């Protein structure tokens, strides 16, 4: 098993105390902490070869360009994309999704077409399609989930028709942790000729992703949820689709030849990256991917399965006390994201108490308002783990929750 204690040493922030207690950081679905290797990579760029890319003839620019494009290759290798040109830098998953909706959606979705998403989508994989459907007179259909928080695959088979042009699905739910059977879903989508978009925001950081094996047409994910900096995200598009897309943004960097009347576009992927890109953060995301690969994505996934099983087991104590844990209870069907509801204590009050124990949780609807509403609760508390979380931190979290419940129960 991987050495969590050694991994923890790479994360300066994990040595911090919060309200006098060791930090137990369990808000990884919101954003993850950064290892020193990623922080150093940012400092190295700004200290030693800060320069614009793809234009200067001077050495700094050449070094910056080399590192920037090397980072793109690292991302391509990380998801086993045949072509680095299939990797487009964006700000985050949300921007990646919007780019697909604007560049591919506006050109390919017509009146009467259907778009399928699931009932457990993040707002970012729902609203762009609502807007697109409204604009084009297309239909947005929702694949329901069962009472365990798993996707209803039978319903999916019934909902998908030859009119379905796009299926856009979250790989791992940020709100309830469910891992969706996307490989099977992609095959079903392709049988009717629909394209498949995979939202990997909560999966790419935690498990190996192979775009060739999965055969997804689009993949999106965010750098900051996988130890990288904020402000850098990825859009993968299959090359044969990318070749036929027009850019959304135009301007500098993305052109071949410009006259006062017209312009021609640079080759992919540059034609989709107008303006000076986020050079430092792209390079640092490359460093994050190096770090993850060095540990090994298989090893990370295995470790997270173990800590998920352990946490689920511990949750049974909380469930006896009336706490409701959402999502599947089989550790193989879910990631290490635990959304729960404490009937006697509002999630925000729980969050404040836990914060004073040093435990960082998220409370609210987790950008999945329709889903949380359908669970019949006003909000949930969520603990989301990563490879640097220890089993004893899980104990701290469980004991802390029990303590917080007792605190409110005994309050007088």
């Amino acid at each position, binding site marked *: 098993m991987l050495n*969590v*204690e050694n991994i*923890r040493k790479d994360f300066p922030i994990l040595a911090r105390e919060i*309200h*006098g207690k*060791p930090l*137990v950081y369990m808000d990884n679905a919101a954003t993850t902490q950064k290892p020193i290797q990623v922080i150093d990579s940012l400092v190295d760029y700004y200290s030693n070869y800060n320069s614009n890319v793809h234009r200067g003839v001077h050495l700094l620019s050449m070094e910056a360009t080399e590192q920037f494009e090397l980072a793109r290759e690292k991302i391509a290798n990380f998801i086993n994309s045949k072509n680095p040109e299939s990797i487009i830098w964006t700000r985050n998953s949300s921007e990646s999704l919007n780019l697909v909706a604007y560049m591919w959606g506006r050109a390919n979705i017509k009146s009467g077409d259907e778009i399928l998403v699931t009932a457990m989508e993040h707002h970012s994989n729902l609203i762009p399609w609502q807007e697109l459907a409204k604009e084009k007179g297309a239909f947005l259909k929702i694949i329901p989930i069962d009472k365990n928080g798993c996707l209803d695959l039978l319903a999916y088979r019934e909902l998908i028709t030859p009119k379905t042009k796009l299926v856009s699905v979250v790989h791992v739910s940020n709100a309830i942790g469910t891992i969706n059977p996307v490989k099977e879903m992609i095959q079903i989508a392709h049988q009717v000729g629909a394209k498949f978009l995979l939202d990997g925001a909560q999966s790419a950081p935690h498990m190996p992703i192979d775009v060739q094996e999965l055969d997804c047409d689009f993949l999106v994910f965010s750098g900051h949820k996988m130890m990288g900096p904020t402000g850098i995200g990825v859009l993968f598009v299959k090359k044969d689709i990318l070749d036929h897309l027009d850019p959304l943004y135009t301007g500098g960097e993305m052109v071949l030849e410009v006259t006062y009347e017209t312009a021609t576009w640079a080759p992919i992927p540059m034609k989709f990256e107008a303006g000076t890109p986020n050079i430092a953060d792209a390079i640092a995301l490359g460093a994050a991917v190096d770090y993850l690969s060095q540990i090994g994505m298989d090893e990370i996934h295995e470790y997270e399965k173990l800590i998920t099983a352990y946490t689920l087991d511990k949750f049974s104590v909380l469930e006896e006390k009336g706490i409701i844990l959402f999502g599947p209870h089989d550790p193989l069907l879910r990631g290490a994201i635990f959304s729960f509801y404490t009937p006697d204590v*509002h*999630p*925000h*009050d729980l969050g*404040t*108490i836990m914060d*004073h*124990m040093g435990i960082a949780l998220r*409370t*609210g*609807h987790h950008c999945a*308002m329709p889903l*949380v509403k359908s669970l019949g609760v*006003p*909000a949930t508390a969520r603990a989301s783990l990563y490879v640097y979380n*220890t*089993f*004893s*931190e899980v*104990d*701290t979290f469980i*004991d*802390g929750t029990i*303590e917080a419940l007792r*605190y*409110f129960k005994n*309050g*007088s």
Partner: protein
Amino acid sequence: MGLLKHCGILKMDLKRVDDLYRDKVILDHCRNPRNADYLDNSDIHCDAINLFCGDEVHIQINVDDFRKITNVGYQSEGCAINQAAGSLISEYIKDLDLSQVRNFISEFSKMLEDKSALDFDEELMPKLGDLTVLHRVKEFPIRIKCVLLSMTALETGLDKVK
């Protein structure tokens, strides 16, 4: 250290949260919210939802011919702070006239949002009565919005009155 530092029985030092959650007035209002009955024939409806956290506040107000508040109904969904604050405020505004409520909203919100002091304005404190306990929330900046939601509701309601 390392793995061990999280082990063992947790000895929670929750003195700081005690300031908020062990305050007798806050606890009392949280458990026994005042004016909780919905007013069917209200003159003014005040509703606010914080979409970020899902908390809701609903206030109904009756006024007399002189725009003085004669009756208040208050319901909320949300955390303890939201509930206690709404209950306290529903008591406070009874018998005020609408312009006094407007003044109260602006002064009280200003005091809550003022980062320069942890306490409320001393001159205003006596006027506020039990409401002064809400200054404790200032030590938990992220929770100030839980108190402010009732203010937002009142403001939205009053804005509808000509």
